[in-house]
């Protein structure tokens, strides 16, 4: 695919581009991408948001042992590992790190940056229940604090005009990601699971305008295209990091593929847009939190909604089986997975639960389990 190639070429040059921009005085804002931090605010402040979303590399996990206990969620540990290894340029060049504190494991990323680095950290607390007014207020207040912090960082004011423009661009991005995703409902999805998730990962690093242009041309390119026909998988879990494509690779090698996914970190929620009128910060809180699809946290007050969403995806994308893929020691997903397995079984949907520690030794057993699932379909 031409657009895909262009996009990856542009990504390769992104780091040196960012270096230049930094030299010119631009501020770089790193964040943990899980769809709780509105990038609109960052762009509107004149800073550049970059998602810190690397994963899949055992050496980062090992490196983190100098700073964190070994039984913290693997994705979270890796983030501190990448910073400590000093080899990932993005982790070294950020002027501020925004961590949406969604649970105690992701919170460790914020704690890790705070305890062990000189980089400024903004802990952006996200309540687990988006149904109450006081939770909405908490989130909204958090956005105002973030807005202040960004204005202080860049020395420029976030005006409504700037914000409105950014909301428009990101709405367009969300819409395109949804339209491309929905193309996979067809019997022969025109885009592979891996390419699709890579689009999300690219969107955390690329300039938003360039990303939207790429998505537009990709959408055109994909129209009328047909891909392979094979067993269809719903991949669901905690984090899908940039560089962690082993499940996709195993599936592709045996003619199956992911046709729809649902992850808390590593994906951009694309099922709803942000209203672009009235109080714009409130509109962001509404789109990113109150009306978020799916709602925050798998379990807790959101259980019913999460289950309904899960089943809806399975049905609409006509999936044959489910792979629950969560990081090792991400306790909440481990427990939620117990319940979702029961739901899936009740619905007659084959289900396997996999936990990854980004360990190369996992690949063998993982392949066997995934192949066994596909054979059973």
């Amino acid at each position, binding site marked *: 695919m031409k657009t895909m190639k262009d996009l990856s070429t542009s990504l390769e040059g992104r780091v040196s581009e960012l270096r230049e921009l930094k030299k010119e005085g631009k501020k770089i804002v790193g964040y943990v991408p899980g769809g709780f931090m509105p990038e609109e605010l960052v762009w509107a402040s004149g800073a550049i948001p970059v998602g810190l979303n690397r994963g899949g590399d055992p050496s980062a996990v090992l490196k983190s042992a100098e700073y*964190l206990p070994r*039984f*913290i969620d693997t994705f979270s540990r890796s983030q501190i590992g990448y910073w400590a290894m000093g080899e990932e340029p993005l982790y070294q060049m950020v002027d501020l790190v925004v961590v949406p504190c969604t649970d105690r494991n992701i919170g460790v990323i914020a704690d890790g940056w*705070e305890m062990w680095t000189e980089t400024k950290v903004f*802990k952006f*607390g996200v309540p687990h229940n988006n149904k109450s007014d006081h*939770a909405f207020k908490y989130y909204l207040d958090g956005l105002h604090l973030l807005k202040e912090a960004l204005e202080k960082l860049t020395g420029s004011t976030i005006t409504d005009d700037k914000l409105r423009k950014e909301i428009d661009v990101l709405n367009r991005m969300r819409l395109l990601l949804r339209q491309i995703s929905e193309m996979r409902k067809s019997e022969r999805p025109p885009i592979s699971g891996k390419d699709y998730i890579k689009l999300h990962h690219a969107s955390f690093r690329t300039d938003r305008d360039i990303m939207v242009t790429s998505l537009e041309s990709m959408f055109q390119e994909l129209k009328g295209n047909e891909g392979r026909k094979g067993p269809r998988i719903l991949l669901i879990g905690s984090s899908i990091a940039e560089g962690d494509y082993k499940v996709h690779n195993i599936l592709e090698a045996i003619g199956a593929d992911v046709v729809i996914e649902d992850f808390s970190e590593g994906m951009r929620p694309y099922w709803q847009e942000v209203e672009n009128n009235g109080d714009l910060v409130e509109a962001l809180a509404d789109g990113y939190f109150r009306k978020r699809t799916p709602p925050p946290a798998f379990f*807790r007050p959101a259980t019913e909604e999460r289950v309904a969403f899960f089943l809806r995806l399975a049905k609409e994308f006509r999936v044959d089986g489910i792979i629950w893929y969560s990081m090792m020691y991400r306790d909440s997903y481990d427990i939620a997975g*117990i319940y979702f397995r029961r739901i899936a079984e009740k619905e007659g949907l084959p289900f396997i639960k996999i936990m990854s520690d980004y360990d190369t030794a996992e690949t063998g057993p993982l392949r066997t389990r995934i192949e066994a699932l596909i054979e059973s379909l």
Partner: protein
Amino acid sequence: MYYDELLRLCGFEPEEIEEERPRIEKAFEKLELTPEDIDRGEERVRQYFDIELNGVRKMLGLWVKCLIDLALAREERKKIIYSSFPAFTPLTNAMAMVSEDIFVAAPEIILVHTVGMIFGKLPSLLEVAEGDLLQRGLANCSLLQTMLGGITKGVIPVPDLIVPSGVLCDQAPELDELIGRIYGVPVAYLDSVVDEMGENWPQTSERRVKYLAQETNGVLAKFEEVTGYTVTEDISQEANWRYINLLLGGNQVLELVKNADPAPISYVDIGTMFRLTRFSSTTTIFGDVGGMIDLLYGELKERIGRGEGILPKGAPGVSIIMSPTEPSIVKMIEESGLVVRVDANATTEAESAPSKHKDFWERAGESFLRKGVCYCGLGFATQLKQICKEWDLDGAILNYQLSCRGFSIAPLKAKELITKELGIPVLVLECEASDIRDYSAEAMRTRVETFAEVLKAAKAAKAK
């Protein structure tokens, strides 16, 4: 009967045993406690606890009473409310205060202190929760696993309402939700957000305090719906007064032994007393421990007066983060020649600034959220350092609880802060407080003994 001697060791009066016999037998049968378990319990109580002191016996007895009440709650009470660790105690106390009909408990805390600490058979509950529920080796919380095991096995009742708090961790609310789903029990979730900056500790952000207070009101509304009882502010105030009195009593004991040299009592006993008053959150002892603390205080005062101690005078003093329920671990630390003086539950002077909040739940919430472990990694590390400073300790054992994210993030940073700023040695120790299948005292002994020698040498060098 075969269990009379154990109960006597646990401070039960003979008349009390006679009177309670039918309940005791029913509860023990339900809990599947066999004569061998009772024998083991007797042996462990003699081995690990200071049963020369009547106060310690009474304290153990209160744990046993909590267990009996818990096991029989379905037969004896109209409604059962569970609130797992770390319960927001002012809230659980207020719910317990409303009526005798309602039984409130942190069931896992009771189970680990009785089935585990006294009877030494916690694996029997832990194993039940493994298999198609929790997987071994994934760092699941042993407390929650114990509760799940207890319910699955049927030794403790299925509650009418679960009140999980998300302040310290995600596992509690998630597992409570799972239990709620499996058994059809309503869950009133007490949400919280952990987003403080360490440099601000112990100042707690106003919005965080308000959020917890608002969540508390939501839980109370659900409580009313399930039980038909209303928790008024008067009830909450009264409950809190009783609780504060308990805490003050405990603090007095801690204050008494703080500087006593030689150390008059093992931290096994002190820690167990603290956990009873702070964490059991149970109707049984709520607001009234029957004079146990006063008794213990008096006995200790006498002992100190006689100059008696468990270790030689001048033994180095250390803090620990949490005193494990399994008594052999603290015993091993003391056998190596170290006096455990305090744990991270102690309130530092730094935290005692008066509250600016007016609302009752906001005030209560603030002191809860101020605790380092509910605050953030750096805040907790700062609190740990503050404890070493205020208690003037010779060293610190930062024993982080395996599987507990909240407790485990700070120790490495705390080690750095304490060594740099206070210049005392620190041992970071991975530990499991109650599930000792992989973490026995023996597995930690080499580390602790070496550390003890390092401390003794450091202390001797300082004296010179």
